[in-house]
């Protein structure tokens, strides 16, 4: 084979592989809708200016997310644009939040489009709309990087669905949701009982500002949320390093100082 023929063959091979990869990557980027949601959301007062009161949230996770993906929710003649609101723990979130509307409790059709490609999915309806109460006296115990959240349960008798609950930690500046965790027990019929959960290490950073919220969910048999309340700790939390962390930092400074001190005479020589 002459070298020019070889070169042409090599170019063809490279082109074929590139086309194959392009096809493969476009197949990988198929538009996918997951976790369509539609729930009544009782949001308590909060220190970061989020809407409060008897709300409704409709949306889904759509991948690939971001421009040029656009997503709408349709119920009857009502069409809502869903806003891309990415969060660390939900990077593909498209959602709309509005005042609870008893005439819009049916299933929503979620429609996504991206570069001519389309995808659809349906939310569950809110078959039994109920206002889930907030938890009582939500508070932070501790000032360090692993504080404990405590609260007392409200009366939860008579609500439809399986009760679940979990905490969420939100960056108070960016409103990014950075952490979520769940508890396994929701006492029904034990109003006033205290519950608590401790934030694990590695989540909070010193000097940052955080909002904490406790969510109380009543979920449908398919795992989707039907009614929810979210209660916020009234104050923004700024963790301070614990004594052990201060000691470690002091030790580090001393070590650096010692090294500098030892190296000083060498400079003079």
């Amino acid at each position, binding site marked *: 084979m002459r070298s020019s023929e070889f070169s042409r063959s090599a170019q063809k091979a490279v082109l074929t592989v590139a086309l194959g990869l392009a096809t493969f990557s476009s197949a990988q980027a198929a538009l996918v809708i997951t976790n369509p949601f539609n729930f009544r959301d009782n949001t308590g007062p909060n220190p970061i200016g989020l809407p409060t009161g008897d709300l409704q949230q409709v949306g889904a996770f759509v991948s690939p997310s971001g421009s040029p993906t656009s997503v709408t929710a349709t119920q009857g003649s009502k069409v809502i644009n869903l806003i891309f609101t990415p969060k660390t723990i939900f990077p593909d979130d498209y959602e709309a939040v509005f005042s609870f509307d008893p005439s819009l409790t049916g299933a929503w059709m979620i429609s996504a489009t991206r570069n001519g490609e389309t995808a659809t999915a349906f939310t569950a309806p809110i078959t039994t709309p109920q206002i889930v109460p907030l938890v009582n006296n939500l508070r932070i115990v501790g000032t360090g990087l692993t504080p404990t959240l405590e609260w007392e349960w409200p009366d939860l008798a008579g609500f439809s669905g399986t009760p679940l609950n979990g905490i969420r930690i939100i960056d108070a500046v960016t409103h990014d949701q950075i952490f979520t965790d769940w508890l*396994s*027990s*929701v006492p029904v019929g034990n109003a006033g009982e205290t*519950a608590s959960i401790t934030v694990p290490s590695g989540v909070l950073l010193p000097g940052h500002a955080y909002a904490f919220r406790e969510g109380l*969910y009543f979920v449908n048999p*398919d795992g989707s949320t039907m009614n929810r309340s979210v209660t916020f700790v009234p104050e923004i939390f700024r963790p301070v390093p614990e004594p052990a962390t201060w000691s470690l930092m002091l030790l580090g400074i001393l070590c650096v100082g010692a090294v500098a001190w030892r190296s000083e005479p060498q400079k003079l020589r």
Partner: protein
Amino acid sequence: MYAAIDNELGWSDGIITGARNIMLERHAVKRVP
């Protein structure tokens, strides 16, 4: 009295990571923002 979800599995404490995961998988919980 605890919800059926807890009686079913006999949990008394909510801080066991494994138990939380079982709960979420068992009920196919779809997390929401």
